[in-house]
C-alpha cells in the first residue's frame, strides 16, 4: 500500500522511486554489483552492393578479461546484423528480443525486415530508460532501400553514415576509417579496411583485444567469418609442464555417501591444514 501511495504521488512521466531506494541502499553499505562491459571496438563500412561489420572479441569485467573470445556480432534478421558494445547482458538480451520481434513481424506481414524498422523499434525502447540499458549498437543490413548502416547510442540517438565505429576503441578505429574510407569500395576492400580498423582498436585500446570477427551482408546473402584474424597467441609455452600428482592435495575431511543405505559417513583420518 505504501508503494502505491509513492507511485500515485510521483509527478511527471518517469518514476524515480528506485533511484532513491538505490541511493539509500548505497548509504547503508550495500555494494553495487559491477556488470560485465564489453569495452570494445566495433566498426561498420558500406561498400558497393552491401555492408560489412567487424568486431573484436574481448569482454572485460573491470580490468580483468572475462572472456577472451566472445561474440559481438548478433543476427537480427537474415539480412540485418548488429555489432554491439556496452553491457554484455543488455546486448545479449536486447538483440535476442529484437530478433524474435522482427521474426514475428515477418511472419505476420510476409515481408523482409528493414533496417529503419529496427532503428525505430530500438530507439523507442531505449529512450525511456534514459541510457540505463547500456547498449551501443551498429546496425547494418541490406533491404529494399539498398545497403544501410546506422549506429544507435544507449540514450536512443541514431546516426546514418557510410562508416561507423563504437566502443572504447572507437577513436582508434575511427582514425583508420577517416583516413582510408572512400565511396565505391569493393567487398574485399571493405573487409580489409574493417579488419584494419579493428586491429587499431585491439592494439591501442586496452578494453579491446584478442581476435577479429567479420560479417559481410550482400543481396546474395550473409558471409559470417568468426575469428577471421587471430592475434596474440599466448606468449610463453612452459618448458617444464606443471605436475599435479594425484592425492597430493590435503583434504581436511573426507565423506562417503552410500546411495543404497542413503547414509553419509566420514572416512579416513582428519588432516590438518598444511602451509
Amino acid at each position, binding site marked *: 500500500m*505504501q*508503494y502505491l*501511495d*509513492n507511485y500515485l*504521488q*510521483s*509527478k*511527471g512521466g*518517469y518514476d*524515480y*522511486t528506485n*533511484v*532513491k*531506494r538505490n541511493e*539509500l*541502499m548505497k548509504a547503508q553499505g550495500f555494494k553495487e554489483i559491477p556488470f560485465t562491459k564489453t*569495452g570494445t571496438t566495433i566498426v561498420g563500412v558500406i561498400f558497393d552492393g552491401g555492408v560489412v561489420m567487424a568486431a573484436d572479441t*574481448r569482454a*572485460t569485467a573491470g*580490468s*580483468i*578479461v572475462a572472456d*577472451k573470445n566472445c561474440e559481438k556480432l548478433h543476427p537480427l534478421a537474415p539480412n540485418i546484423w548488429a555489432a554491439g558494445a556496452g553491457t554484455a547482458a543488455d546486448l545479449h538480451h536486447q538483440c535476442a528480443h529484437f530478433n524474435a520481434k522482427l521474426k514475428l513481424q515477418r511472419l505476420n506481414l510476409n515481408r523482409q525486415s528493414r533496417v529503419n524498422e529496427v532503428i525505430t523499434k530500438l530507439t523507442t525502447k531505449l529512450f525511456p530508460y534514459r541510457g540505463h540499458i547500456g547498449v551501443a549498437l551498429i546496425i547494418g543490413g541490406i533491404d529494399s532501400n539498398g545497403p544501410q548502416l546506422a549506429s544507435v547510442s544507449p540514450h536512443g540517438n541514431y546516426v546514418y553514415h557510410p562508416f561507423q565505429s563504437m566502443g*572504447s576503441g572507437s577513436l582508434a578505429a575511427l582514425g583508420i576509417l577517416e583516413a582510408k574510407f572512400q565511396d565505391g569500395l569493393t567487398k574485399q576492400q571493405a573487409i580489409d579496411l574493417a579488419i584494419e580498423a579493428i586491429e587499431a582498436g*585491439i*592494439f*591501442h*585500446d*586496452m*578494453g*579491446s*583485444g*584478442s581476435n577479429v570477427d567479420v560479417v559481410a551482408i550482400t543481396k546474395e546473402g550473409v558471409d559470417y567469418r568468426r575469428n577471421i584474424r587471430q*592475434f*596474440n597467441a*599466448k*606468449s*610463453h609455452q*612452459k*618448458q*617444464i609442464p*606443471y*605436475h599435479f*600428482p594425484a*592425492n*597430493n*592435495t*590435503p583434504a581436511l575431511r573426507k565423506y562417503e555417501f552410500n546411495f543404497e543405505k542413503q547414509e553419509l559417513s566420514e572416512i579416513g583420518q582428519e588432516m590438518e591444514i*598444511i*602451509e
Partner: protein
Amino acid sequence: MYIPVNDMLKHFKQDAPAMANITHKSDQWSPYHDNSGTVLAVGIPGAVIVAGDTRLSNGYNILSRDATKLSQLTDKCVLATAGQYADFIALRKFLQQRLQLYEFQNEVQASTETVAHLLSRELYSRRFFPYYTFNLLAGLDENNHGVVYGYDAIGSYDKMTYGVQGSGQELVVAVLDNQLKGYNKINKTIPQTREEILDIILDCFSCAAERDIHTGDNVEILIITAAGTERIVKPLRKD
C-alpha cells in the same frame, strides 16, 4: 534485506517536486594516476630474480610499451615498483642520490638491508600525501642469498622469499604460493634451479597478460648474482 520504507517515504515526500533534478557529485581532481602493470621478485640461494612488464598505461590508453619498472640502486639490489610512474621516478631519484652520498661518506655501497630501511623511512616521511607506489626491493644479503622486501604505499615492509605487486598481483601470487612454497601440497616439490624458476616467472607473466588488460607488451627480467647483473627481455601480448 531490510529496506526502511517509512524513512524512504519521508525522503520522497520532501523531494517530490525536484525529482527530475537528480545531480551527481562532480568528479574531483585527483593528484594520483594508476599507471598499472605487474612486478614480481623471487629470492633463491645465490641469486635474486626481479621481473616487471614494460607497459605504461592510463585508463584504457597505452602511454608506452617500453617503460621499465625496475631500477638498479646498488650492485646488489634492485627496486621494482608498480603504481604511479611519476612517483616511481621521484622515489628512484631520491634513493639514487641518497645512496650515492652514502657511498661517498662510507666508502662502501649500502647493503640491501640498509636500502630496505632507507626506503621505508622515505615512504613514511610522506605519510600524509603518500607516494602512490607499491614497491619490491630485491637484492642479495650479506651471504649473497637472494632476499625480497615487500612494501605498502606508506613504508610498512617485511622480508619475504618472493613477492608480487601491481594490477596482476591477485592473478599471480596464488600460483607462486603453490609452486614456490608448495601451498596445498602434501609432498612439496619446490623448484631449485634458476631455469625452473625463470620458466615459472615467464608463465606467470604470460597468464597475467592474458587476463589483465594492464599487463603486456614485454617482460623485463633482471637476475642479480654476486658476479653481476643479467638482463633478459621477452615479448608478451600487445593487445
